[in-house]
């Protein structure tokens, strides 16, 4: 007997071995959130607490010094909004 592999199965590694480090970033893990953080940059003081507490390291500092969330990796936990000393991060329903 034989099994004709699908095109996708032909491309996958044997035994699901990941042979190059750092490939995790290719997996977008932000798909399961219900609420997304939205920062009001008028009030933001660039303290970076959101960046520090984010369990997914989804925040990055832009060239102006503000911290922006990458929604591809944000799982919507809301810790940043809870911890923000200026309370300028709001969790809003994400509509897809």
């Amino acid at each position: 007997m034989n099994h004709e592999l699908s095109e996708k199965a032909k491309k996958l590694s044997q035994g699901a071995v990941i042979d190059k480090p750092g490939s995790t970033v290719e997996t977008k893990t932000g798909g399961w959130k219900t609420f997304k953080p939205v920062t009001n940059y008028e009030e933001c003081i660039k303290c970076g607490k959101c960046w520090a507490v984010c369990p997914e390291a989804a925040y990055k500092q832009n060239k102006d010094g503000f911290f922006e969330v990458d929604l591809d990796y944000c799982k919507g936990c809301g810790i940043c909004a809870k911890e923000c000393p200026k309370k300028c991060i709001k969790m809003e329903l994400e509509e897809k």
Partner: protein
Amino acid sequence: MVNIDIKKATVTEASVSVAWGARLSRPEVIPMYPITPQTHIVEHLAEFINNGEMDAEMIHVESEHSALSAMVGSVAAGSRTFTATASQGLALMYEILPIMSGMRLPGVMAVANRALSAPINIWNDHSDSVSARDQGWIQLWVESSQEALDTVIQAYKISENKKVMLPVMVNLDGFSLSHVYEPVEIPDQGKVDKFLPEYKAEDFLDLKNPKTFGPIGFPSDYMEFKEQQQAAMFEAEPVVQEVAKEFGKAFGREYGDGLVEEYKMEDAEYAVIGMGTLCGTAKDAVDELREKGIKAGVLRLKCMRPLPAERIQKAVKGLKALAVIDRHVSLGFEGPLFTDLRSALYETGLQVNGYVAGLGGKDIKIQHFEKVFNELKEGKKKGGWLL
């Protein structure tokens, strides 16, 4: 029939033969946990190591779950690895069985088949391994002490074949084979080294070239990985035959074609199929029946996974009826080998009867086979439990 040069043979317990098969295959690591009736296998391996005759690391783990877990780690690190178990031990390993095969790690485990509790029973049936048949391990089944030794060596070559890369279980009947002394020819190490070169893993845990083993497989990919395993299982079928042939050339011993052994099947009208030592009794029964003019034969299934369906279809050509002897029962239905073979033979239209026998070490006697062949001759759809 096993072709042994009796002048070169020593009388050896089958467990010791398995240990010799492992020793000659040069595993680097042996995680072990003893359990009846497998204990003699690892005891003898420990003795080989103690005597300085074998260069392997023996890991004394705290359970069978740990034994197979250690094996996964050892093979992932690139080492040829061996272990052995039985019955409840295999049951405790169950969680790791699909992990090792899913990670496509080659290795060999001998199972001295024993009934599962309860009631507690240390004697032979096939319930331990047959109930683990869906977990992606190639399953080879042996009938004699010599075959046990030879099959361990072949199992490594099958397992490490780049097209296969799957673990192999070598099954021998607990007590009815594991503790039986028979003449065995122990092959020359040099010849085995030539037949089975050193294992060189392509993917292995390496600090200089880090890789991830055993990551999560999301619903988007999981099924495609199972496709790969299914394809590799089917690829293994011709590899089993090639390895058996190559072994035959190198050592002068063949067991059928590695998948199925045929006994007096050329002109057979009725036949039984089963696995392990019960086939020896079946062959004796067939000899007696042939003296009475009944054209009887035996098919011994040596490879249960992958199930060589087309090979069996060929082997049953010309038969009027076939009986399947299961040494295990899928409680709530029937013998799993019967289910498999009836499905594999459905399109041939052959009458297939299913019998459950020998559970928990109950003897399977020549009289049982006489009854089975009589029912086949009567042409009625029968079967049941042989008590």
